[in-house]
């Protein structure tokens, strides 16, 4: 059921695309018809698959890194208010600095391996995760945090340990829904990171393949790669969505995607 709908959607998408190419008569070298693209997909399956594996690795590693880093800094900022006042503007700035601008510099520092792609991906993913989590953490009902610190007071654990327990048992669970919105957004934008990374410097990957296809006007190959990339993005999104839902059975989100 859950699989069927997206599948139908994808076919609907293909149909829509076909309709656009048929109606608007956009030339083939700007938007090829889905049939041409499917052909390319089949005949160049090996080529695309090889590059796709590389990009998938970059996406997943970047996603993981951004997730960890984003959650970590939200925790830091929420637990130590000064950090927020001093560091938060930097984080916003880091977002505003377009990755396009820093990616070339990153590449000059780190070379053309997988490193810069993961960093660029992590940078993009970082912010929605951090903001979502932080907003969630800060919105914990004060009635609960009050009660929790009262319950803790007679513990002889260190301040750090107490803070840990408050986060572990109260704040983090309260923040999960908000964090999950952030992660969902991050999952959807994760592929951009890898693509940008490959765009500024690479010798493999779907972004690399697309650049080449674009330069050689092999628009069918370009869109076939795009299609695969998009499928990867959608899969990542739904995978993440599924995991998040299982983590939060108490959440009144009646609707299934």
């Amino acid at each position, binding site marked *: 059921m859950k699989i069927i709908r997206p599948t139908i959607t994808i076919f609907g998408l293909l149909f829509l695309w076909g309709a656009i190419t048929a109606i608007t008569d*956009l030339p083939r070298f*700007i938007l090829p018809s889905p049939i041409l693209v499917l052909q390319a997909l089949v005949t160049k399956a090996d080529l695309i698959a090889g590059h796709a594996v590389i990009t998938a690795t970059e996406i997943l590693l970047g996603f993981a890194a951004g997730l960890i880093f984003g959650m970590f800094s939200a925790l830091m900022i929420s637990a130590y208010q000064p950090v927020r006042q001093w560091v938060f503007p930097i984080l916003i700035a880091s977002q505003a600095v377009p990755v396009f601008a820093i990616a070339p510099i990153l590449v*000059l520092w780190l070379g053309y391996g997988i490193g810069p792609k993961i960093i660029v991906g992590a940078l993009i993913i970082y912010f929605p995760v951090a903001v979502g989590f932080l907003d969630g953490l800060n919105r914990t009902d004060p009635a609960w945090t009050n009660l929790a610190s009262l319950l803790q007071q007679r513990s002889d654990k260190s301040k750090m340990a107490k803070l840990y327990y408050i986060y572990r048992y109260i704040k983090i669970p309260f923040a999960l829904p908000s964090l999950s919105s952030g992660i969902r957004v991050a999952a959807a934008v994760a592929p951009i990171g890898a693509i940008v990374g490959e*765009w500024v410097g690479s010798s493999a990957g779907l972004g690399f393949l697309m*650049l080449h296809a674009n330069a050689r006007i092999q628009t069918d190959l370009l869109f076939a790669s795009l299609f695969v990339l998009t499928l990867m993005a959608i899969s990542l999104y739904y995978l993440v969505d599924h995991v998040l839902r299982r983590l939060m059975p108490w959440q009144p989100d009646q609707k299934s995607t």
Partner: protein
Amino acid sequence: ADKITVLLDWFVNPDHATLIVAQEKGYFKKHGLEVELIAPADPSDPPKLVAAGKADLAISYQPQLHLQVSEGLPLTRVGTLVATPLNSLVVLKDGPIKSLADLKGKKIGYSVSGVEDAMLKAMLEPNGVSLSDIELINVNFSLSPSLLSGQVDAVIGAFRNFELNQMDIEGYPGRAFFPEEEGVPAYDELIVIANNSKVSDPRYKTFMLALEEAVQYLVNHPDESWKLFIKKHKELDDELNKRAWADTLPRFALRPAALDTGRYVRFAKFMLDQGLIKTTVPVKDYAIALD
């Protein structure tokens, strides 16, 4: 006045001097043309847009034209801006690479244009280096930085009038290997292309006339031309562009409308041999001289 939109290949730079002079000196206007120059961000877009009828003319490169025509884009060369190759393979002057043969096992950066591997192959094979002996890395627009920072050992796609000066200014002079001296047939670097269905448009002929007047002014009055150039594009008023301007001067096509059919035949054959295109078509189908 008749409006003409011209898509540049890249942001305005000294390579476009003819166009800028024609614009600023009023040659277009004199011929009743109102020309709009638009810079794209991706050099591969303008040909597509002209092919799709979205713009009148585009500035592109001869090697790419062969590719585009082979992919079925209805494009025809109607003029030339720069009549020699600018592209070159650049290494650090003081670096370990003294000859092309030294590139074995090295990293070569390039900005994806679609033809770099063919050119490299032609340049390297006579020196005993095959494509599998080197690692090709897309460095996009960071050609000289990637070389300067040591991330790659050589770059191809660097323009001899530009990247070389740039490196020199940065204090890391470079050494260029010129494709046309290393087995690649000579070609026109910058050309003007139009949609097949509109090549007979009379405006294009006047356009080429204006270009011809411009290029003559340019070679006759290089300093005044430079002033015209930076008057409109203040951000280009620096050492690099000044030097590039000087280096580009001798390379402009003095007869922008003239066509050397032989060049196109030879380069098409080269592309065919390299496997970049599958068939050749008669030159007149994709390159003409407007008369």
